[in-house]
């Protein structure tokens, strides 16, 4: 991928220079990053130095996004005017890009891992910011293209070949806008509020975006469709329409569709001017002090965490370890991993945002089709919608076990190789236990409590079955995808890029289990059987994890 991307940016060299970047430096940084992305990095990377990393996760995400984008693209055929349908499509694509950016690429922009390599070199903040934006744009551009593939086909079919170039330029502009606004947000927060705030704000932004997406699909979009022709025929004549970026980007196509008027022209001008302006503000005014912010991001808090622990106070981790692990080795591993999981800077940042999906999605689905919330809540106990809440959790929580295999400080994992274990299975099993108890179970327990509160006693069996399913899914996922030593791999940009899309994939199996559960509900004894079956089945991957040999870990890590 490196060469075509560099070729593309070579065409934009003048732009980089005009923004105050040093193009040869920009190119060198981008090239190094793209080469690094194409190679796996981690504990066992040296076994096959020349082997190229499989970009499986990211390619799957692209495919998935293409499938998701196709029906949205069909809006073009069903909804008139073009301003409305194109606006919807751009809204969809921008939303997906923003989500992906927040979830997977924030850490690329704010990467501090190569501070010691880059900061002592004569690279200006502008060049560095531009190179990082370009790096992210490479992936974001591919995501946007696959999302818009359907629209591209439908649009070209409807309006002819002139559609494609206009649409692609609009896509580029929308990506520029999303990237620049995110960059402005991050750098402003970094400069004025500090790094701890920044992490909070990224998480808040993710919550807001997820809420917008789910509620948008549930409530706003269907109504918009119904009202589209009636009320939005004169969309462009409303003042607030000028504030909506998706409409600016849709305006040139509205013109192409033959509706040339003043509002469309103004919006087109907005689309052409405002995204570059955002980039200009970012690069001109915020980027020059970027390195200082990066250096600050890396610097420790300066001994603020010095805690005077009482002597011989047994910790929570130690107590849980003594309950869930039999021997001293297991307990020591559990306690150690528990602490690592609690303190790894990035694990939490990656784990929690995925979880935010649960309450929002569950709420969206539960409240769907109801006129107002009060009626919805009244009706709830008579429905089977608690299964939805339970299985959405079952789909979103377990993937955290995969995250535990990654860390930016992956080199420290040599310690597991140095310890006298015949098999690494023990370490893997304790890792699953820690992630399960530290992240998966508390969240699941909260959801179960909520379900029992609303549905009462009749939901007890359902909760138990769902818990068994959760155990099965978590352990299976750990066996299939996470047979790596904890914190032993570096998460490359390609894998990061697959993260957001990958979360969708884990939906399939829990959804099937959920449907089975629903189908068997009329006969409670079959549910008991199902629960027992799940628990027995979970023992199979669990045993397999314990029996993992060193060779198995190497294979899984390549």
């Amino acid at each position, binding site marked *: 991928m490196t060469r075509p991307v560099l070729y593309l940016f070579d065409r934009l060299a003048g732009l980089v220079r005009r923004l105050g970047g040093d193009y*040869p*430096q920009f*190119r*060198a*940084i981008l*090239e*190094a990053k793209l*080469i*690094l992305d194409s*190679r*796996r*990095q981690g504990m066992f*990377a*040296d076994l096959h*130095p*020349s082997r190229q990393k499989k970009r499986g996760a990211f390619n799957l995400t692209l495919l998935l996004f293409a499938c998701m984008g196709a029906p949205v693209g069909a809006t073009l055929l069903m909804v008139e005017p073009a301003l409305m349908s194109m606006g919807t499509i751009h809204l969809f694509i921008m939303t997906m890009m923003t989500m992906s950016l927040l979830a997977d690429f924030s850490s690329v922009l704010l990467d501090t891992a*190569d*501070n*010691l*390599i880059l*900061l*002592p*070199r*004569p*690279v*200006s903040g502008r060049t560095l910011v531009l190179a990082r934006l370009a790096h992210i744009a490479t992936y974001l551009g591919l995501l946007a293209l696959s999302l818009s593939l359907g629209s591209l086909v439908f649009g070209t079919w409807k309006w002819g070949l002139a559609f494609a170039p206009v649409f692609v330029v609009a896509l580029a502009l929308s990506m520029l806008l999303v990237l620049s606004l995110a960059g402005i947000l991050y750098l402003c927060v970094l400069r004025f509020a500090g790094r701890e705030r920044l992490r909070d704000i990224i998480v808040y932004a993710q919550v807001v975006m997820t809420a917008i997406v789910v509620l948008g699909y549930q409530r706003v979009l269907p109504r918009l469709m119904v009202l589209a022709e009636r009320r939005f025929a004169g969309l462009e004549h409303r003042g607030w329409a000028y504030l909506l970026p998706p409409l600016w980007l849709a305006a040139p196509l509205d013109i192409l569709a033959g509706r040339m008027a003043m509002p469309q022209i103004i919006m087109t001008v907005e689309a052409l001017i405002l995204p570059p302006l955002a980039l200009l503000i970012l690069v001109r005014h915020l980027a020059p002090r970027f*390195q*200082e912010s990066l*250096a600050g991001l890396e*610097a*420790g*808090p*300066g*001994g*603020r965490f010095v805690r005077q622990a009482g002597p011989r106070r047994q910790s929570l981790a130690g107590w849980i370890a003594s309950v869930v692990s039999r021997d001293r080795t297991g307990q020591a591993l559990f306690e150690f991993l528990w602490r690592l999981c609690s303190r790894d800077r990035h694990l939490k940042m990656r784990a929690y945002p995925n979880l935010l999906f649960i309450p929002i999605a569950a709420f969206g689905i539960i409240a769907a089709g109801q006129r107002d919330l009060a009626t919805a809540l009244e009706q709830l106990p008579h429905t089977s919608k608690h299964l939805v809440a339970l299985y959405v959790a079952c789909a979103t929580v377990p993937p955290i076990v995969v995250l535990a295999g990654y860390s930016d400080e992956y080199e420290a994992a040599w310690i597991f190789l140095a310890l006298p274990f015949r098999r690494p299975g023990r370490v893997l099993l304790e890792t699953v236990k820690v992630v399960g108890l530290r992240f998966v179970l508390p969240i699941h327990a909260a959801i179960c409590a909520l379900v029992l509160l609303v549905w009462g006693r009749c939901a007890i069996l359902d909760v138990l079955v769902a818990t068994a399913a959760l155990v099965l899914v978590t352990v299976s996922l750990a066996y299939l995808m996470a047979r790596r030593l904890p914190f032993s791999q570096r998460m490359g940009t390609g894998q990061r890029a697959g993260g957001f899309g990958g979360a969708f994939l884990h939906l399939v199996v829990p959804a099937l289990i959920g449907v089975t559960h629903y189908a068997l509900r009329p006969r409670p004894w079959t549910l008991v059987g199902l629960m027992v079956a799940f628990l027995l089945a979970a023992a199979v991957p669990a045993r397999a994890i314990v029996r993992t040999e060193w060779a198995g870990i190497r294979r899984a890590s390549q």
Partner: protein
Amino acid sequence: MTPDAGPDSVRTDPAIIVRGLRKSYGTREVLRGIDLEVARGQVLGYIGPNGAGKTTTVKILIGVLDGFEGQAIVCGHDVARQPLEVKRRIGYVPESAALYEGLTPREYLRFIGRIHGLADCEIDRRGARMLAQLGLSDELDDRIATFSKGMRQKVLLVAGMMHNPEVLFLDEPLSGLDANAVVVVKEIIARLARRGKTIFYCSHVMDVVERVCDRIAIIDDGRIIADGSFEELQAAGRGESLERIFTQLTSAGGHEQAAEAFIRAFDVEMRA
């Protein structure tokens, strides 16, 4: 492109000027007023116990760390105001092996060289030649991830010097190197100094500092507590070797007791 030694670079002003340098992390004061001048062509050994402030000083001087008090001028440029100008003229070999491990030495040096504005052919020529002299000519296209600590150190050394900087900051540059490479690097340092390059040498290896550096500054607890040539430090009646001088100045003494107490830790366990 690179500031090679030209007729106008025969300058007499100091390469490094530090005045009243203070730096705190939170409430902890790491540097408590450092004053230092390093003349061009001088090899300064900057030594001190762990946590004394050596790396902090270096990070400030190479323009990576801001938020300090006092003045730091390197190659005639104020570090706080013109960090890029400073970075163009210096080389830095960090203590930890900060490298893009997924790259090969050839790719990594190309990356670094391009950042410094060198032409590709020049980068390849210099890189290959320099690495070959350190005994790394066959591994040019292997991934750095497969390298031993010493091999990585060699890549770092070349990456720090290939743009021919005026001032070179070396933080424990010999760590992990084999004996042959150590001899070569020591000789390189001496020859660079003869060519008018200034070298700021941080290390814990006392006998190397003693031999390589023509001036030694000892820092302890954020202050410089001794400064002069090895002979001057000796003449001040501190001891025979630099190691002696160093330990006398920076610790309360009692190494034998410390070692004995260390070993005794086993006994306590056995009794329990």
